[in-house]
C-alpha cells in the first residue's frame, strides 16, 4: 500500500511513539461463493486507544477481527502485536487463538449460558491460584459495576449487564488487544455511553488497542478517537471521525455518513437571541439559517443536509415554521426502489428524496420550478 495515501494523523502518531502502534496487520483473504466473490485486502497500523472499524455489512469488519483473534486464517499477510508475531504467511507462523492474548467480545456476546457471571469471568484465568482469581474477578466486576450479579446466570440479567459481563470476561485476562464486534448495538445511548466511559477508564491504565466494529454512524461520532472506513474488504478512508465522516473525499463515505448533501460555507450573521446563525454556501448566493454553534462571522465550516430531510413545494409556500425556503429548478428525477431521487439546482445542486406519490401529486419533471424547504435543525454543521 502506498504510504502517502494514509492520512497525516496516523503517520504523525507513528512518529510520536512506535509503542503506541501496538497492532500492525496486513491481511489478504478471498471468499468464493457461488454467486459472489469477496476479497479482503487491508494494511493497518493501530495504536492504543479506541479505533472504530466502520462500514456497511459485508465490508469485512468481522473477518478482520476473526483474523486477529486467530479464528480465521488469512491466505497471506502478517500480524504483529507489539513485538510479538501472531501470524506470518511467508514464515508459516500462525499462533493459536489460545496463545494470542486477544480479548474478543462477540456480537452476540457468547456468554456461557450454563455458568454464573462469576464463573464466566473466571473462565479465562483458570490457571491462576484461587485467591488471585477471586481478587481479579472481583476487581474487574466492580470496575464494570456488576459485582452484585456474581451468582446470576446470563439469562437472569439485563442486556446492558450482559454487555458489561462480556467486557469484564474479556478484560480480566489482561489481553494485549481488545476486539469488540458491535457489542453495544442493541443498547440505548445513555447505557452505551456509560459502558464506554468505564471502558475508557479501564484503558487509561492499560493502554491497549481497542478495535470497535460498528455500522452505526452515531457510534462513530460518539466513541471513536480514530475511524477506519471499510468497503468491500478494502480501507477507503481513515483518520479522526470528523475528518473522515464530515469531510469525505469519496462519495461512498459521505453516503455512509448519511449526508447526501455536503457544502462548504461560511458564517455571515449570528443571531444569539434566536439561537441560530446564517451561513452562505460557497460558490452560490444561497443563505441558510442553521443552528448556532461556537463560531465567528466569516469562519468557514461545512453544512450537511440529508436528502430525506428536505421538502419540495411546487408553489411558493407561506406560513411555515421552517426557516429556509429556497427557489430552484429540477434537473433530474430518478427512481431508486420506492424513493425518487431528485436533483435540484438552486445555485448549488441538492439531492432530495421523496416518495413516488409526492412526485406524482406535484407533477414533477425536469425543468420544473420548485421551492426547497429545509428546517434549521436539518442543517448539520461540521468543522471545515
Amino acid at each position, binding site marked *: 500500500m502506498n504510504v502517502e495515501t494514509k492520512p497525516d494523523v496516523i503517520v504523525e502518531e507513528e512518529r510520536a511513539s512506535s509503542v503506541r502502534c501496538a497492532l500492525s496487520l496486513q491481511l489478504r483473504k478471498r471468499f468464493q461463493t457461488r454467486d459472489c466473490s469477496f476479497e479482503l485486502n487491508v494494511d493497518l497500523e493501530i495504536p492504543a486507544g479506541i479505533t472504530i472499524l466502520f462500514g456497511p455489512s459485508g465490508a469485512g469488519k468481522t473477518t478482520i477481527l476473526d483474523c486477529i483473534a486467530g*479464528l480465521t486464517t488469512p491466505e497471506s499477510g502478517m500480524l504483529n502485536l507489539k513485538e510479538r508475531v501472531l501470524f506470518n504467511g511467508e514464515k508459516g507462523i500462525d499462533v493459536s487463538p489460545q496463545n494470542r492474548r486477544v480479548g*474478543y467480545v*462477540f456480537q452476540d456476546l*457468547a456468554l456461557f449460558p450454563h455458568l454464573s457471571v462469576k464463573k464466566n469471568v473466571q*473462565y479465562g484465568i483458570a490457571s491462576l491460584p484461587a485467591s488471585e482469581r477471586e481478587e481479579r474477578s472481583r476487581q474487574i466486576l466492580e470496575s464494570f459495576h456488576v459485582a452484585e450479579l456474581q451468582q446470576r446466570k446470563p439469562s437472569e440479567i439485563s442486556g446492558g449487564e450482559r454487555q458489561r459481563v462480556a467486557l469484564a470476561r474479556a478484560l480480566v*485476562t489482561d489481553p494485549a488487544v481488545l476486539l469488540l464486534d458491535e457489542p453495544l448495538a442493541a443498547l440505548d445511548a445513555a447505557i452505551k455511553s456509560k459502558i464506554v466511559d468505564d471502558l475508557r477508564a479501564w484503558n487509561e491504565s492499560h493502554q491497549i488497542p481497542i478495535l470497535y466494529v460498528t455500522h452505526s454512524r452515531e457510534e462513530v461520532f460518539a466513541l471513536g478517537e480514530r475511524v477506519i472506513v471499510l468497503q468491500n474488504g478494502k480501507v477507503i478512508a481513515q483518520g479522526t471521525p470528523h475528518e473522515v465522516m464530515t469531510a469525505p473525499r469519496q462519495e461512498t463515505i459521505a453516503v455512509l455518513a448519511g449526508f447526501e448533501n455536503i457544502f462548504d460555507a461560511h458564517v455571515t450573521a449570528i443571531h444569539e437571541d434566536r439561537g441560530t446563525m446564517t451561513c452562505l454556501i460557497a460558490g452560490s448566493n444561497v443563505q441558510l439559517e442553521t443552528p448556532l454553534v461556537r463560531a465567528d462571522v466569516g469562519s468557514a465550516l461545512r453544512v450537511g443536509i440529508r436528502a430525506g430531510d428536505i421538502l419540495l413545494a411546487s408553489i411558493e409556500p407561506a406560513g411555515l415554521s421552517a426557516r429556509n425556503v429556497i427557489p430552484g429548478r429540477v434537473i433530474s428525477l430518478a427512481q431508486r426502489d420506492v424513493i425518487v431521487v431528485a436533483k435540484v439546482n438552486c445555485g448549488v445542486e441538492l439531492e432530495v428524496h421523496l416518495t413516488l406519490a409526492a412526485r406524482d401529486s406535484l407533477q414533477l419533471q425536469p425543468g420544473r420550478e420548485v421551492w426547497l424547504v429545509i428546517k434549521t435543525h436539518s442543517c448539520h454543521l461540521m468543522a471545515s
Partner: protein
Amino acid sequence: MDWQSFWLTIRLAVLVATVLALLGLPIAYWITYSRWRWKFIAEAVVALPIVLPPKVLGFYILIALGPRSPLGRWWQSFTGHTLAFTFEGLVIGSIIYSLPFAVQPFAASFAAVDQRLLAASATLGASKLRTFLELILPLSLPGLVTGIALSFAHTMGEFGVVLMVGGNIPGVTRTVSIDIYDKVQAFDYAGANATALMLLVISFTILSLVYALNRKVWAVWPFK
C-alpha cells in the same frame, strides 16, 4: 418369569451403554468437528446398523468373531476359546449394533452448541479438551442422556444379532427377547406375556424418563 435371562439382559445393557458412552463421545466429537473430506463414509458406517437387518449384521459379526477370522484367532490364542456364543461376543455385537443410537444423539447435540461459544472459549485460552469438558459436555447434556438411554433400551430388546452371535445358552447368552421367542415356540403364551410385559414396562419407563429430562422447561430444574 425367567429371572436368569432377565438379569443377563440388564447386565448386558448396562455394560453396552457404559462402553458406548465412553466410545461414542470421541467418535461423535470427531464426526461433528472433523473436516476430513471422506468423513461421510465414516458417518455412513456408523449409521449402517439402523438400516441393516439385524440378521445380516449378526451374520458378519459372527464371521468376524469366529475362529477363522484374524480377530477370532487372536482372541482364541489369548483366552483359549472363541468369541462366538459367549457373553463377551454378545457385548461386542451389541456395541456395534447400538453404536448409532449413542453416536447420533451425541453428535447432534454437539453440533447444536453455538460455534461462537467455542470461539470465545478458545480466545479465553481454554484448550480443546477443557472446552469439551466444561462447555460442550454440559451444554449437550440432554443429547448425552438420550444417547445413553437409547443404547440401553435398544440393547435390552435386540434379537437378531443376539441369536446369530450368541445363540441360546441359558445364563450366558439367552436374553429376554430370546426367552420370549422360546416360550412362544413352546406355546407358553402366559410365560411369554409376563416377560414381554416386563420388557415393555422397562422400555416405556426409560423413554418417559428421557423425554421428561429433556423437556426444555426443566432444562435446569423445576425451581429457580
